[in-house]
């Protein structure tokens, strides 16, 4: 409605109200304008999308709230909370509720309201932000941390533990309740003062250079007094100058024990093969010398040869036993080597 390049007052009003309406309608958050008794005056596009209820079904009634909160107990609880808030304020902020959509889905909304006066009438503008996806993502992240099979601890800038996951509880024996909000877990895990101090010094040196450390191995003492070897990695997280430390500890006790057992086994194998082979070799050489000197008779030569033959047969059996044992003891040996060892 542009005449002569200008805009008439009526047109201005129309344009203004059209712009407000557009903004409300196209907002990415659910916006509802309500009368005092909860009757809906306006219901934007996002509200339709989130709840599944169209403007036509909602505007002019207050029945939508029963639909969104079909569980009477829950609805009463929400209503009660809103009433409580409104006793002291004429608005509320970040009230989290779960609605039931038309399709039967549950969605979490974060509500903020504002009371306005419109043509002398009191109106409430309710803005509901759908945080379902964000909440699911947070919950998923929490679940990953909680259920990771590595110890995860998050420390605030003062060193107070903020996160202590399930694996941390299992590995150390200390529950989250005993650890979160405190700083003394490290004294419990490293009760030996000398060891703790040397470790602290080592970690401080590494952190001063790199702000984090990787694969530092330490031996902790669990709540029940057991020793366990952990490989630690840390990382600083955060922003705006406030940094948290995330410490990830992988329990490598069994791996280390298996490695030690393997090394012990291989040492034993080397000893039990190298020495006997040398002994058989020398026995045969000495016997050859005795034969050459004419000292041994035929029976004695046969006895020696048979005994050394038995020795070599036993050595062969030992090799096979060792091959089998090594493969069984360490399944982490690459497949190609396992095949070789299995003969």
């Amino acid at each position, binding site marked *: 409605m542009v005449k002569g390049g200008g805009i008439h007052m009526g047109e201005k009003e129309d344009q203004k109200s059209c712009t407000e309406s557009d903004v409300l309608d196209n907002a990415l958050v659910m916006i509802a304008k309500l009368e005092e008794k909860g009757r809906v005056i306006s219901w934007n596009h996002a509200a339709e999308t989130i709840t599944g209820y169209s403007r036509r079904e909602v505007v002019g009634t207050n029945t939508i709230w029963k639909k969104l909160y079909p569980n009477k107990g829950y609805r009463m609880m929400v209503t009660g909370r809103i009433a409580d808030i409104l006793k002291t304020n004429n608005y509320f902020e970040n009230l989290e509720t779960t609605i039931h959509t038309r399709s039967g889905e549950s969605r979490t909304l974060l509500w903020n309201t504002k009371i306005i006066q419109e043509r002398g009438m009191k109106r409430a503008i309710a803005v509901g932000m759908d945080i379902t996806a964000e909440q699911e993502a947070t919950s998923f992240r929490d679940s990953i941390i909680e259920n990771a099979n590595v110890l995860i601890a998050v420390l605030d800038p003062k060193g107070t533990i903020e996160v202590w996951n399930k694996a941390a509880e299992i590995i150390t024996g200390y529950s989250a309740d005993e650890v979160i909000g405190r700083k003394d877990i490290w004294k419990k895990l490293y009760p030996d003062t000398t060891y703790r101090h040397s470790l602290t010094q080592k970690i401080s040196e590494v952190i001063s250079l790199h702000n984090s450390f990787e694969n530092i191995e330490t031996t902790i003492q669990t709540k029940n007094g057991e020793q366990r070897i952990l490989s630690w990695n840390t990382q600083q997280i955060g922003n705006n100058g406030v940094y948290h430390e995330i410490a990830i500890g992988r329990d490598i006790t069994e791996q280390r024990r298996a490695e030690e057992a393997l090394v*012990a086994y291989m*040492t*034993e194998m*080397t*000893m*039990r093969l*190298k*020495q*006997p082979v*040398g*002994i058989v*070799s*020398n*026995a045969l050489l*000495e*016997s050859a010398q*005795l034969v050459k000197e004419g*000292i*041994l008779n035929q*029976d*004695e030569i*046969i*006895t*020696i040869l*048979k*005994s050394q033959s*038995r*020795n070599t047969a*036993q*050595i062969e059996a*030992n090799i096979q036993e060792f091959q089998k044992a090594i493969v069984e003891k360490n399944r982490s040996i690459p497949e190609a080597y396992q095949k070789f060892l299995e003969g």
Partner: protein
Amino acid sequence: MPEYIEPQELEQKKIFLILASPGTIRQRNTDIIKEISGLGYHTIIITTNFPYSVLTKMYTQNEIPLDHVSFIDAVTRNSVGSAENIPGVVRFINNPANLTDMGIAVTEVLKEESGKKVCIMYDSVSTMLIYLSSENISKFIHFVTNKLRLMDVSGVFLAVEKGLDPLLMSQLTTFVDNVIDTG
């Protein structure tokens, strides 16, 4: 002048671990028995590598009086199947891995030779590794050394040098009084 074992240490009924290279261990056996015999001791040789009949020839060659030695032979029966014990000379056991039989044989031979100045020579720890784990060898040597101390008898354990793993070596070291590396 004794080359390997001091007479007073034998008198004190000490127990020795004597180490030798693979090429000299047989000769060391003979040298030590010659020394011990020269000091008036009767040596009971537990042999796990050479049959007693061959050892007697070696000893004869080295002028060791055979009435100063007797044998527990773990080789002959294992190789040829049967052999009769000769009282006061040789007692056969079926298999070097049969530590029960070997333990019984040691106990009985020590009883037979009671009253004499006796020394036991175990030849060798290294050969036993063919048949037994180091853990079992260690247990057996612990048993034998305890028996020797209870019966107030000296003992010599022969082993190939640098061939025993550090754990077994440290265990054997705690069981004996002296470790002599003869090279």
